[in-house]
């Protein structure tokens, strides 16, 4: 394997006719890093991945491995020469070849000796716990086993970059978790630089060093799983990582208190206090200040888990009437409306059971409330 420090993608754009599938995508991948492209279907995450492999030619932009330009939209290194490995959602094993022949496919193309091919195939199969499967055909194996073969087929070549395109999406829930653990362990062990594409936030949070959230071909946010999960850059990311309770309101007062921005927001359901930890230079902060000054409306974002049923002293008490209660094992998922304001919906979780039509008080800590000002261009928050 050729060693490198960093793969950088600069201004990568892909157009299909009028449609922009990937829009000015720029990102650096450090060696050994595990980066996930996260987004709903049609957000361009798979296209971005395929552009990086060279399987889809890019419209403009550049891709570098250290100083070596592998693609500048005019001249590009063909995919077979990039020394990247790719794992597909549908496994894409060669059905006419056995497991061993599948894994040996790339090695044989590299004209390695028979003994070395044998040894490396054996090692790779052991790594994915498929020692006894060498002479089976893909059609004789389960989806999880097939995907392991596909992974072995890639890592046996020691690729510079491993790309996984929704590798777990075709598996059932239990297998998906098992194989996810294995992928994590494999990355810990082999330290292959990896790009992982998924629409599943749990996978993204569990596996990644960094997550890239995409929407309509544009990067929405780049950050550690913790950052993406607790501090989304815009309402889209917030919604995608599980924030709900998007209520419109106007900021009545805004002041700096102890390093945080304290806002009082008048929503239809009542007055809400928010303690925003948006730091200096964060575009979200400037947007909120601007919205306060111009009297523009803002939108809240609160996780259902952060709204606590049962009254609390102080602020942010919501008087609710439950109109949908779902038992979900560890808690009840409750959908409620605010008393006297039927159109304001509240989504929350409660350990204690609440019955249909019951009135109850709920509250949310001010530091759990996020505020977003509507901005024409969704901001991008990067974490280096």
């Amino acid at each position, binding site marked *: 394997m050729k060693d490198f420090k960093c793969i950088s993608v600069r201004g990568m754009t892909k157009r299909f006719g009028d449609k922009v599938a990937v829009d000015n995508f720029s990102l650096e991948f450090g060696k050994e890093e595990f980066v996930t492209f996260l987004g709903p279907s049609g957000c361009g995450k798979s296209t971005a991945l395929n552009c990086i492999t060279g399987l889809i030619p890019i419209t403009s932009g550049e891709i570098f491995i250290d100083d070596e330009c592998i693609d500048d939209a005019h001249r590009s290194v063909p995919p077979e020469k990039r020394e990247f490995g*790719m794992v597909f959602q549908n496994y*894409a094993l060669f*059905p*006419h070849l056995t497991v061993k022949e599948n894994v040996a496919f790339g090695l044989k193309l590299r004209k390695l000796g028979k003994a070395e091919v044998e040894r490396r195939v054996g090692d790779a199969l052991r790594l994915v716990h498929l020692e006894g499967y060498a002479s089976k055909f*893909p059609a004789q194996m389960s989806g999880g086993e097939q995907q392991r073969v596909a992974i072995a087929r890639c890592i046996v070549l020691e690729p510079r970059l491993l790309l996984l395109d929704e590798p777990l999406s075709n598996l059932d829930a239990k297998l998906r978790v098992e194989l996810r653990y294995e992928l994590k362990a494999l990355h810990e062990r082999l330290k292959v630089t990896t790009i992982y594409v998924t629409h599943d936030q749990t996978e993204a949070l569990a596996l990644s060093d960094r997550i890239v959230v995409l929407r309509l071909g544009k990067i929405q946010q780049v950050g550690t799983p913790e950052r993406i999960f607790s501090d989304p850059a815009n309402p889209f990311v917030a919604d995608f990582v599980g924030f709900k309770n998007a209520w419109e309101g106007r900021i009545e007062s805004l002041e700096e208190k102890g390093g945080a921005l304290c806002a009082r927001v008048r929503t239809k359901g009542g007055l809400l206090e928010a303690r925003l930890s948006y730091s200096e230079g964060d575009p979200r902060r400037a947007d909120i200040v601007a919205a306060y000054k111009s009297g523009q409306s803002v939108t809240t974002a609160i996780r259902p888990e952060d709204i606590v049923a049962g009254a609390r002293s102080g602020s942010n008490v919501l008087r609710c009437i439950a109109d949908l209660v779902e038992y979900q094992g560890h808690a009840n998922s409750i959908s409620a409306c605010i008393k006297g304001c039927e159109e304001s919906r509240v989504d929350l979780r409660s350990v204690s059971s609440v019955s249909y039509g019951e009135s109850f008080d709920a509250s949310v800590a001010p530091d759990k409330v996020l505020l977003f000002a509507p901005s024409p261009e969704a901001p991008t928050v990067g974490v280096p």
Partner: protein
Amino acid sequence: MRAALTRPKAGAMALLVPAVVFILLLFLYPFGYGLYMSLTDPGGAFSLGNYTRFFQDARDFRTIGVTLGISVPVTLIAVALAVPLAYHMRRGVPGERLISFFLIVPVTLGTVLISEGMLTFMGPNGWLNQLIMALGLSKTPVRFTHNYAGVAISVGLQGFPYAFLMLLGYISGINPDLEKASQMLGANKWQTFWKVLFPLMVPGIAIAFCLNFVMAFSVFPSAVLLGQPSGPQRVIAYAAYQWAFEKFNFNAAAAISMIMAVIELVVIAFILAWRSKMYKGASIVGKG
């Protein structure tokens, strides 16, 4: 799904009757009758004479070689041309409908119309020869009709669309991610074709070859209209025709058609053996 597990009712079985009757009447009965006729003399007594006469008569016996000499190369060429064209068109190309249209037309027109067309178009005074001579490629007209070339071109034109359409369906059904996977593992287009696509196409190629071969082996109108049916292009079907309708010996004709069937079955068995040698895995793995 309880209903699916119970035995089909008698009423449901009755639905099979038309198909069974159809096969019995139109295939099994004529075949059995033909076999019976081929093994009897015109008087109705058992005899192998029809077969021994065929193999002893040099004029009849050589029709096997003549027919194989037309059908095998023509089928090979048709399939060999269909494979790269189908590969090229596997993800669709601009003008695909037009191309398909021109490929299907010869099938719909029928052999006689094509052969008649070729007689005028490719004849000594036809446009093709006028073009060849105008371009100075040849001083005298090139013979495309009433010889081997005429029969071969006509049979090829008939068979190629079948081979192409069948292979196109086959190759476009192969999961496109297999090609991507092969490329990502370091294979160029050529290696990907030979190591991945071609082996997966083998079953389709085998079927296309078999169908094309059977059609070409029973060549009759093309040989009569575009060849010299009494001379070098005396194909086996023509020999059977002469026995039946010129000499009115239906028993000899039946024997020839049985010989045709055996030869076709031998070639098909040979192709299927090649197929199973080339392709061991399961059938195409679809997407998802």
